[in-house]
Every structure is written in structure tokens, then in C-alpha cells.
């Protein structure tokens, strides 16, 4: 049957087609669907029928084959209209040879205008109105409408012969059929198909077309409903389940129909709707089918006022990991937050209403989210608790993680977040919780180095007093790893940014420190030591920001993390962090101040170092920290003597303790340190010179050079929060 000379028989089919043609001529055209197995001769029958109609000239037959490749082609819509225009011109001129001789679009449009009046203008405009790459439901609907408009405008009887329509359905079923095609009046061809293709040779009466399908796959909603009710009524639930399972396989390319069928079954009287739907979900909750399936449920079932069923279905699907954004949002809206707040949050997360890792949750941004948070408020603390939202989200994310370690992770996360919640002051939303959850999401697919996957960490540099350092020093903590964990929050990759971090200590609230950090980074960018752009500035805070600090961070677009966050993240990384003492803030201890003036004598700086050592011992400062501070003081003294010159060979030192800060001030008279040589330059000029400030900046938390009229004052600060042991 695939070759013209071998076309024979088909007497009954041709007779039926002739009858349909007569109806069309009388203005009673309708659509037919020709469904048969592949290779059984559908296409050849269409060609033969097209040739005969073309020669007769009474009906304009538009033949178009929806090959799989063509249906997926981005220029499909334009190809469709081009074929229509060419065949229209050939039909108008009675020249079948034109069909084998494609014309350029411009020539085609001109030929149509000159030979077919209004119809030619319509087709020419249709050609011009479609961009070559126009695609999507709207473009397809416009293209499909052109034959109908041609028929209406010219009075010509038009019969669309669409071959292999199933390919179009497979390519466009999802965006077109559920909403666009059914609801839109400008897609009559597809609408006809949707409404009427219950079984082979089911006829409609909306427009004139003949469409071929290879298999039974597509089922209309009405057909599915009829079939489902019939099954439920006559064969019972068990058979209905089996029918659904079978159809799930049959409809693999058209999940829409599976959903429709299940919807109909669920609505059927006397059936165990939920059991039916569960059976269908079991068959369908894999891959793309699951997404379509849940979306359909989300739309369809609430309309049927089967709220309880819908809730159970959505719960089931969400727990099975089959949630779509629509379903997630629906679940969050329909589920009672008090009953299952975690599930409601999971739904919100799927809907994108809340996001693990975001800096803040704006509870007023979404009424559903507001309700959920209120539920948490009632259940958890008696007040609104964004951290609990995040804890639940994190737990949900871990639950969904594919790793076999997710049970351990879940427990670890819950434990860590409980700890943070316990320490939360209830006043601010600690971003560390969000970031901790973000980290868990990142590690859900594999830790920093796990399972053979080695992840390259970004290089984090520090900025100390306006100088770029070689790394960020935190006790036992891999800051680079933290940057890797948090980079998703900034939408960056390792390759396109430079991470710059500063550790802010002292609990001063942060606004001033953050501003200084911003200025330092800007200065270094101007000096070319940091990239001019693509820098992520990351402040690590010892204590939560106050409102001014938070506002400053937001204004400067600084990333911030706090110690509790580091604790969680470090725990995930398997490293230890020495945390600042928790608990209520103790009143500031009385200020302790030691002042000493030392003369210019060889190695006299050792005296200052020993004095500092004694003070540090009394303050229970960690000996290693003390060792660093001694070096810093020694270097400061050497520098001071160096710059004091011989005019006044004395150096004044003041060690003071207040507010958890150890301040070490070293002052001298003489020329100011206006131009400090770099270590490299100093190494060339004089051995040992120029390293002093470099070392100092590495060894203390803050350094400030304060030029004075008669000399220089160098202030070094060490925050004792993490330096005190015991």
C-alpha cells in the first residue's frame, strides 16, 4: 500500500470518505479520525484521497504530514503555513506540478495575492505574520486556524488531511491540550481532536478534517470518563486498577490522558476513588509522568469538591517525591498546617514560595506561607518562629536527599538546628540557619569529597586592614569549604568570582566594621589587588548584627555568616570550631590598663613581651594566642624604635582590657610611618626590615596606624571571645 501503483482495494474506506466529502460540499463538514496500526496504509489512503480531491477541484484538500522530526522542529509553524500556501496556489492555478516545486515565501505570497484575491491576501499575511522560529501553543494555534479562516473568507470547501497527528500530540500535548486547545476558540482542529477521539473512527462536527493516528493512546476526558465509569460499574475496582496500569503504559507519550482517566475514575460513583488514584500514582509516579500527573490532580480534584481525597492524594504524591510547583502550592494551601506543617512546608518549597538558604523569609509575601508560619508559631514556641520554618525545610531537604547517609544527616541537622533554635534570641532571624540549610542542600548530592567526587573549592582571600591576605584564618575551619557551601546563595560559581572574607569580631554590632570592610575592598580593587568586579564580600561575624548592621549589610550587599552557622557547617565538614561562650551577656569587666615606657636598648622589646605574657596568663588567654601576641608586640616595638630615631629613643606601651578586647598600643615619637615598604622591597634594601606590620596583621584581629603630629601610634586589638581557654 505504500506505493501508488499498488494502491488497490479500500473500497469501503473510499466510499466513506466520498460520503464525508459530499457532506462537506453541503456545508456539513466534520472531522474524522483514522486510527490503525503503523504500516497498515493510512498515509497512502490519505495521499490517494488528496490526489482525487485535487483533480476534482470542488474541495481544496490540504495534506500535511506531522512527521516526528517536523513536529519537534522550531520552524514547524511556518512550515505548516508554507505548505498550506503552496498547496493553495497549486490548487488555485490547477497546477499539480507546483506541489513538487517549492517557491520562496515572497514569490508564493505574491502569486497568491494575484491569483486568489482575499484568500491570497490572507495566506500572504499569514506567511508574513509568522516569524521563522515562531513556536509554542499560541503560534501553533494561529497556524492551525489559517485553513479555517481561508474557508470562511473565500467560501472554499477546505479539507485538512493531517497525517500522523499523534506526533503533534506527543510534541505539544502538555502545553496545548489541557488548557490552550480546549479553552481556546482559535484552535478548532485540535479542540475537535481533543473532544472526539475516543476510539477509532469517532466523528465530530466542528470542522472538516481527517487525521490519522497510529494507536489508541490519546483519550479524551469524556472518553476516559465513560470508560472509567463503565469499568467501575461493571468490573469493580480491581479491574479498574489494572486498566489504569495498562493505560499508563499505553499512554506513556501522553500523560495528560492518564491524568484525565484517573480523574474520571476518582470521580466515579461508588468507587474507591482514593485507592484507584493511589494505584494510578504508583504506576505513574516516575519521571515526567509524575509531574503531569500531580499537576492534573492539583487542578482537577479540588474542583470536584473532594477535598479529603485531594489532600490524601497530594500528601501521597509529595511524600513520594512527585510534587510539582502547582501541587506543592495546592498542598500547602489545602493541608492544615497544624496537622502536618512539615508537609505544608515541603509543598511551599516545591512551589518556590520559600527557599532553603534565603536570607530572610518574608512571611507576609504569601498568605499561605503566613498561615504556615502561624501554625509553627502556635505549635512550636507560642510566637512566630522563622527558624522553625527553616529547620523543617532543612529536614525535608535531607529527607529528599539521595544519599544513603541521609538518616544520619537528618539527625545531625535536627540536632544542630535545635541547638541554634535554643540559642536564638527570638528577635532576629538568624541567617545562619538558612545558610546551614543551604549547605545541607548542597551536600545532599555529595559532600566535599565523598564517593569519589572531588569538588574544587573556591579560593578565599582575606582582607585585613586594607591588605589582601593569603587565606582566612579560623581555628580548625576550612573557610574555603564554607564558601563552596554558600556560593549558591550568591548565584556564583567558583570560576567567575573572587571570594573575599573578613572575620569581624568584638560584638560591636557590625555596621561600622562592615562599612570599613567595604571601603577596604574598594580600595584594593582600585589598587588592582582584587578584581574590579566579580568579588563576593563575605563578613564572618562573631555575634549577630544589630539592626544598623543588618541594614548596612543589605545596603552594601555583603554576605554575612555567624558563628552558630560556622558550627553547623563545620560539623558537616567534620572539623572543629572553637565557639565563643554562649549564654547571657556578662557585664563588661572593669578596665585593666598597664602602661610602660621602654628605652632604646638592645632586645628591650622582650620586656614588653614578658609583661604581656603575664597579663595574658592572668586573663587565661590561650598560650598559642599569647605567643602570637608577643610576636606582634615585639615587632611593634622594633618598628617603633626604628622610626623613633635618636631624637627620642623611648617607646610607650599601653596594654588595656575592656569589653572582651585586649588592646595593645605602641607609640613613639619621630617620623611617621607614612610610606611603609612592602616586604619584598624591604628584603632587598635591608634584611629583616618591613616584615613587622605584615606579621602584626597576621597575628591580631585589628590593626590601626594612627599618625600623630609628633609620631605614630600603632593600635593592635585582639578579641578575647575565642582566645580565652578553659
Amino acid at each position, binding site marked *: 500500500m505504500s506505493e501508488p501503483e499498488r494502491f488497490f482495494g479500500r473500497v469501503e474506506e473510499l466510499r466513506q470518505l466520498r460520503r464525508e466529502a459530499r457532506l462537506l460540499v453541503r456545508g456539513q463538514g466534520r472531522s474524522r479520525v483514522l486510527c490503525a496500526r503503523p504500516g497498515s496504509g493510512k498515509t497512502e489512503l490519505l495521499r490517494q484521497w488528496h490526489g482525487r480531491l485535487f483533480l476534482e477541484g470542488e474541495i481544496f484538500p490540504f495534506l500535511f504530514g506531522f512527521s516526528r522530526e517536523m513536529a519537534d522542529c522550531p520552524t514547524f509553524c511556518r512550515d505548516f503555513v508554507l505548505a498550506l500556501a503552496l498547496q493553495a496556489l497549486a490548487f488555485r492555478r490547477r497546477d499539480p506540478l507546483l506541489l513538487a516545486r517549492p517557491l520562496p515565501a515572497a514569490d508564493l505570497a505574491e502569486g497568491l495575492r494575484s491569483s486568489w484575491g482575499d484568500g491570497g491576501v490572507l495566506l500572504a499575511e499569514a506567511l508574513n505574520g509568522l516569524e521563522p522560529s515562531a513556536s509554542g501553543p499560541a503560534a501553533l494555534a494561529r497556524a492551525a486556524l489559517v485553513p479555517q479562516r481561508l474557508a470562511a473568507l473565500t467560501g472554499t470547501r477546505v479539507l485538512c488531511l493531517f497525517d500522523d497527528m499523534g506526533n503533534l500530540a506527543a510534541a505539544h500535548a502538555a502545553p496545548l491540550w489541557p488548557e490552550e486547545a480546549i479553552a481556546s476558540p482559535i484552535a478548532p482542529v485540535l479542540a475537535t481532536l481533543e473532544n472526539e477521539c475516543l476510539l477509532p473512527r469517532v466523528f465530530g462536527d466542528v470542522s472538516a478534517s481527517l487525521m490519522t493516528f497510529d494507536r489508541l493512546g490519546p483519550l479524551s476526558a469524556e472518553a476516559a470518563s465513560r470508560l472509567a465509569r463503565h469499568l467501575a460499574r461493571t468490573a469493580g475496582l480491581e479491574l479498574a486498577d489494572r486498566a489504569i496500569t495498562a493505560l499508563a503504559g499505553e499512554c506513556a507519550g501522553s500523560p495528560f490522558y492518564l491524568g484525565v482517566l484517573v480523574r474520571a475514575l476518582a470521580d466515579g460513583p461508588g468507587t474507591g476513588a482514593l485507592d484507584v488514584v493511589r494505584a494510578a500514582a504508583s504506576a505513574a509516579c516516575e519521571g515526567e509522568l509524575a509531574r503531569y500527573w500531580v499537576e492534573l490532580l492539583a487542578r482537577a480534584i479540588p474542583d470536584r469538591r473532594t477535598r479529603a481525597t485531594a489532600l490524601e492524594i497530594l500528601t501521597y504524591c509529595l511524600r513520594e517525591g512527585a510534587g510539582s510547583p502547582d501541587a506543592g502550592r495546592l498542598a500547602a494551601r489545602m493541608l492544615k498546617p497544624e496537622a502536618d506543617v512539615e508537609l505544608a512546608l515541603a509543598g511551599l518549597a516545591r512551589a518556590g514560595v520559600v527557599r532553603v538558604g534565603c536570607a530572610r523569609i518574608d512571611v507576609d509575601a504569601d498568605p499561605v506561607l503566613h498561615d504556615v508560619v502561624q501554625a509553627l508559631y502556635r505549635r512550636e514556641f507560642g510566637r512566630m518562629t522563622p527558624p522553625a520554618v527553616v529547620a523543617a525545610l532543612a529536614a525535608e531537604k535531607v529527607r529528599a536527599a539521595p544519599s544513603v547517609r541521609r538518616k544520619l544527616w537528618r539527625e545531625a541537622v535536627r540536632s544542630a538546628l535545635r541547638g541554634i533554635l535554643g540559642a536564638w534570641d527570638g528577635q532576629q532571624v538568624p541567617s545562619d540557619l538558612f545558610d546551614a540549610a543551604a549547605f545541607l542542600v548542597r551536600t545532599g548530592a555529595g559532600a566535599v569529597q565523598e564517593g569519589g567526587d572531588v569538588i574544587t573549592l573556591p579560593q578565599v582571600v582575606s582582607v585585613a586592614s586594607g591588605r589582601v591576605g593569603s587565606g582566612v584564618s579560623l581555628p580548625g575551619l576550612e573557610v574555603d569549604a564554607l564558601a563552596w557551601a554558600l556560593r549558591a546563595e550568591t548565584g556564583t560559581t567558583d570560576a567567575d568570582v573572587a571570594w573575599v572574607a573578613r572575620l569581624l569580631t568584638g560584638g560591636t554590632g557590625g555596621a561600622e566594621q562592615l562599612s570599613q570592610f567595604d571601603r577596604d575592598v574598594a580600595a584594593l580593587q582600585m589598587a588592582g589587588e582584587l578584581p574590579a568586579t566579580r568579588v563576593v564580600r563575605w563578613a564572618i561575624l562573631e555575634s549577630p548584627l544589630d539592626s544598623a548592621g543588618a541594614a548596612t549589610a543589605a545596603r552594601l550587599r555583603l554576605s554575612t555568616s555567624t558563628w552558630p552557622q560556622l558550627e553547623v557547617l563545620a560539623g558537616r565538614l567534620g572539623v572543629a570550631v572553637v565557639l565563643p561562650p554562649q549564654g547571657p551577656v556578662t557585664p563588661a569587666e572593669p578596665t585593666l590598663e598597664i602602661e610602660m615606657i621602654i628605652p632604646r636598648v*638592645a632586645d*628591650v622589646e622582650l620586656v614588653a613581651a614578658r609583661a604581656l605574657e603575664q597579663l595574658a596568663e592572668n586573663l587565661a588567654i590561650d598560650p598559642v594566642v599569647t605567643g602570637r601576641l608577643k*610576636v606582634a608586640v615585639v615587632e611593634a616595638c622594633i618598628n617603633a624604635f626604628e622610626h623613633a630615631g635618636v631624637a627620642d629613643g623611648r617607646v610607650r606601651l599601653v596594654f588595656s582590657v575592656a569589653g572582651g578586647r585586649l588592646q595593645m598600643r605602641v607609640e613613639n615619637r619621630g617620623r611617621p610611618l607614612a610610606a611603609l615598604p612592602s616586604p619584598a622591597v624591604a628584603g632587598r634594601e635591608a*634584611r*629583616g*626590615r618591613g616584615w613587622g606590620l605584615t*606579621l602584626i596583621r*597576621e597575628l591580631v584581629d585589628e590593626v590601626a596606624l594612627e599618625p600623630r603630629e609628633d609620631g605614630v601610634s600603632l593600635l593592635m586589638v585582639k578579641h578575647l571571645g575565642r582566645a580565652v581557654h578553659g
Partner: protein
Amino acid sequence: MASFSFTTHVADGRAIIRTRGYLSRTAGEQLEQEIVRLLGGEVSRFVVNLHDTDLINSVGISILIGVIERVRAQGGELAFSELTSVNEEIFRIMGLQRHARMLRSDSDAEDR
């Protein structure tokens, strides 16, 4: 301010110098003299044991760098052993690890 001293033990062409106290400019110069003296003899390998030196300044370290370069120029080697964590950090910041090995103990020098 006599805060620095050292002892030297020479055996098999190797000298182990154990320091005590603050390694400053003065101390660095004393060490330099000692090592130059030993270099003139049969010693080409040196281990400076800093176990009892808890404080070092940048000038002293810079003198040591010069000494290391001098020893290497004569085909010898100078290593440091038993550094405190702070001293090791200072050495790292100043890049001394590029010039000399850091040993956990004096005997580690024999492994090479």
C-alpha cells in the same frame, strides 16, 4: 638583656645547635658567626633546634635566611627542628619554609 644562648654539638660532619631564649637581631648574629665558623671546618649540615626558643622576631629570621643561603652556596644544608606552633607560623608567613626544612626532631635530619 642577656636573653639568648646556644650549645653546639658536632658529629659526623653535622652540627646540632640548640638555642635558648629570644631569637632577635643580636641572637641571629651570634648564630651566624657560629655557623660561619663551623662552615670553615668540616661541617656542612646544620640543624638549629628551636625547642627552647619561644620568641623570634623578623630581624632574627632574616639573618637566618642569609645564613641558610650561605650554607647552601657551599653545598651544605641547614634545617630547623622542634619549632613551636607560633614560630612555625611566623616562619611560614615569612616564607622560610622555602629555604629550609622544618624537622620534628633532630634525628629527622638523618632520614635524608
